[in-house]
């Protein structure tokens, strides 16, 4: 079951904040977040684990609401480099197979 991302697209001015949501109709074990720029590889941002842990390496935060089966990615004080398409991926069970959403296109303008 493919997770649903919202919004589909968002345009920001540099310094503004954005929230990207990812929801699933099935129980979530974890949520993976990636950013992909045009013609490039998806880049790992963060993993949200059941139980509230998060693993990531960028100054971007996220939440994981198990009851609502939803994760949100928070981008604060956006920079031009934040532009790209953000994908969430959810495993179908506790294993490796990720199902990705259709993506959220984020554009940050000067």
């Amino acid at each position: 079951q493919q997770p649903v991302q919202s919004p589909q697209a968002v345009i920001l001015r540099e310094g503004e904040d954005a929230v990207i949501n990812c929801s699933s109709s099935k129980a979530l074990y974890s949520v993976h977040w990636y950013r992909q720029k045009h013609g490039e590889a998806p880049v790992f941002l963060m993993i949200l684990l059941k139980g509230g842990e998060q693993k990531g390496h960028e100054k971007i935060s996220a939440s994981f609401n198990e009851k609502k089966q939803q994760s949100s990615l928070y981008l604060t004080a956006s920079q031009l480099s934040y532009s790209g398409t953000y994908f969430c991926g959810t495993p179908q069970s506790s294993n490796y197979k990720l199902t990705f959403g259709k993506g959220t296109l984020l554009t940050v303008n000067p």
Partner: protein
Amino acid sequence: GAGVSQSPRYKVAKRGQDVALRCDPISGHVSLFWYQQALGQGPEFLTYFQNEAQLDKSGLPSDRFFAERPEGSVSTLKIQRTQQEDSAVYLCASSLAGPLSNQPQHFGDGTRLSIL
């Protein structure tokens, strides 16, 4: 190398030809994944290897698609008798550990395949 390397970056083939796409994962990574990404869509799972063993090929669209990883490092995705609907970006990803959902996957830049 520092990251996952895929070759070629672009491939144009005539309908009916066979193609082979190569993936060099990050050294030491146990898990290797192939995904297909259509324009404007997220990556779709094709197949998964743990070392040299292909543990899951449930996402391969047809028996024209074949993947291998004979020595547990480099992998090749082969498509026989290509069709126009095979046109897409094929992404390879690797991760350090085994089949766990809490491990980040590191992607290559992909091969953009165009079937004429």
